[in-house]
């Protein structure tokens, strides 16, 4: 772990721990959000992590940034931190300078590009309601592009995901592309991995909190004259959750480091795929342990379980990665073991 990573993570954890309370997360349900937390993050230059110092950034790399995404998930922070910083980081990958104004992204499905004009509809775009710019995928003929557009003049249909986070349908009808950069399939793959690494990071954060809340609750809640963690069936839930949480934390940490080192294997895909099961198992067990109090709005648990239920069906889903992995396996000349260890004879000799 880099020094800066530790330092930055500490600052963010402190801000989120003190500023993001149950009521702060609830703001989303009243069509508000934690603008004060956002301001604090900006003041501390945290939106400039993984932007190089030459470009006026705060230094650090993608590993540092992904670690912060984990904290956003861990505290369910209702701010567009991931959206804005990741949108800019995606632009950086294609040598475009990031934007100061609030920017979001959506690169799962392409818009149509005709010369410089954009057409089409993007669904479930995060925070588009508040953002000024969007980084999107576009297609002209068989060529793919990363484009940037102004959201000001776009037609938005605002809604929310299961966790009340802002999601909008954005309609592009002859909108000007402010930027367009052609990308290769390989580049697209690596951008999709970045986006997925961001999702698994925030999901792992939320999952960790769900687990911790459950452990805590099982010590506090008593029935039949003893804390419920003394019942073997509750112990089974706790043990299963511990297994899932550990699996996912180690996987997520691995992915973050690999991306930081510029290595792009299939690890992100494995992690995202496994996260689908983990989020279901942990959310189910946590609600079972909490019983009635856990399904109330007053309790915090749902702020994290609803995020898990929402996030697992957004962006590059497990279904998407399952298909990608199957395709890779079909086309690969390696057998399974060679592919897992990413090493075959040809590689070693080469």
């Amino acid at each position, binding site marked *: 772990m880099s020094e800066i990573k530790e330092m930055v993570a500490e600052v963010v954890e402190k801000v989120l721990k003190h500023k993001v309370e149950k009521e702060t997360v609830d703001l989303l*349900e009243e069509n508000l959000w934690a603008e004060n937390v956002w301001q604090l993050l900006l003041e501390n230059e945290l939106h400039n992590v993984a932007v190089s110092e030459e470009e006026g950034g705060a230094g650090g790399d993608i590993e540092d940034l992904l670690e912060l995404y984990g904290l956003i998930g861990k505290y369910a922070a209702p701010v567009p931190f991931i959206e804005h910083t990741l949108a800019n980081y995606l632009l950086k990958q294609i040598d475009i300078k990031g934007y100061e104004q609030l920017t979001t992204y959506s690169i799962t499905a392409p818009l149509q590009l005709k010369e410089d004009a954009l057409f089409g509809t993007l*669904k*479930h775009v995060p925070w588009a309601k508040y953002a000024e710019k969007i980084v999107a995928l576009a297609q002209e003929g068989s060529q793919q592009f990363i484009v940037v557009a102004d959201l000001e003049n776009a037609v938005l249909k605002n*809604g*929310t*995901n*299961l966790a009340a986070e802002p999601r909008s349908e954005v309609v592009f009808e002859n909108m000007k592309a402010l930027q367009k950069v052609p990308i290769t399939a390989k580049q697209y793959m690596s951008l999709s991995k970045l986006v997925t690494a961001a999702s698994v990071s925030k999901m792992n954060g939320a999952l960790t909190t769900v687990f911790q809340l459950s452990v805590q609750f099982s010590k506090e809640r*008593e*029935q*039949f*004259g003893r804390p419920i963690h003394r*019942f073997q*069936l*509750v112990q089974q839930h706790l043990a299963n959750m511990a297994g899932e949480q550990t699996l996912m934390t180690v996987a997520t940490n691995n992915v973050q480091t690999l991306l930081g080192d510029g290595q792009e294997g299939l690890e992100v895909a494995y992690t995202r795929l496994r996260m689908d099961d983990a989020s*279901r198992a942990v*959310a*189910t067990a946590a*609600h*079972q342990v909490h*019983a*009635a109090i*856990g*399904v*109330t*709005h*007053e*309790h915090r*648990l*749902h702020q994290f*379980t*609803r995020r898990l*239920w*929402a996030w697992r*069906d*957004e962006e590059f889903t497990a*279904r998407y990665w399952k298909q990608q992995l199957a395709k890779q396996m079909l086309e690969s000349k390696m057998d399974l073991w060679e592919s897992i260890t990413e090493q075959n004879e040809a590689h070693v000799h080469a």
Partner: protein
Amino acid sequence: MNLPKVQFTEEQKQFRQEVRSFLKQHIEKGTFETRCDSWLSGSNPDFSKIVAEQGWIGMTWPKQYGGKERSTLDRYILTEEFLAFGAPVAAHWFADRQTGPLLLRFGTEYQKEFFLPKIIKGECFFAIGLSEPNSGSDLASVTTRAEKVEGGWIVNGAKTWSSNAQDSHYMVTLIRTEPLGEKKHEGLSQFIIDLKGEGVTITPIRYLTGEPHFNDVFFDNVFVPDEMVVGTLGNGWKQGLAELAFERSGPERILSTFPLLNEAIEQLKKKRDYAGLEEAMKLVAELWSLRNLSIGVAKVLEEGGEVNIPAALVKSIGTKFEQKIPEIVRLLLDVYPDLQSEKEIERYLAESILHAPGFTIRGGTSEVLYGILAKGVIAQ
């Protein structure tokens, strides 16, 4: 364990058709919209009134109270159709399912004459007052208490998680009528408490979606006349157990998310998605076999048999199934769960995911049911 097998008669099939076209008509007219888990979260007193006009509340009860003396299986068919179409029947559900049968078995003549006709007309809804903040699974530890006064009792304490108490007129309430002694199952009684009465305060508890659903109900020196004690004083625990058989074995423990499964299969058919349909058919097979159990229990109940153990079985495996449906469907179809969506499938998926956690908690948690089941099979 074994349960009777049941084949429906021609008349019963006809009755099912009648209920089905009634529900379809009302969906078309816009009386209600299909929702998952509507039997508990869809309280619509106006619709309950319409159902009552059909003679479909308390339909198995004696004619002298306004009932139709129809069979338990007719009622089973009726409730199944409500669930399949996701109809908002929560307002009258508890009264029809358990308060009526409770009063018929243990109630005084006065209670039957007073309550049953009103329930049947859809004018009197009941809530269930069992749980307390510190007494969930350990129900026998309840502390809401009553002290004897002339002509009745003075009740103090609080119940929680009372589903639909906000729309209900009365609550069957489990109350300690003797100080807590060595045996905590003793000294408990069931009172019918007028929820509009003096000293009763109902405050809503929001479900995780933010919707009002269940409630805290506080009793501050509430006077309950002697006529409102159900059955035998001090016998509340045993009487309550009898109710649980009705509560745990019905089709609502299998079909809460059925509208989603139904819509998913429609979509897979439209897409001619063989692989997806093959997977979905596994759910259908499971549904069919669970349904056999639930219907079998209904049959035994009709004949006055003992069903506590199989009822616990139906609830524990049935609710697991209803919980599984959204988890499988989301893998079979590319659906984005969205409560506000115009697409039914997206709405049903969102409703199912958000309501699923409660399935294996309400009416007794699965963990507690496993204990009952295991003890039951060992005792056999």
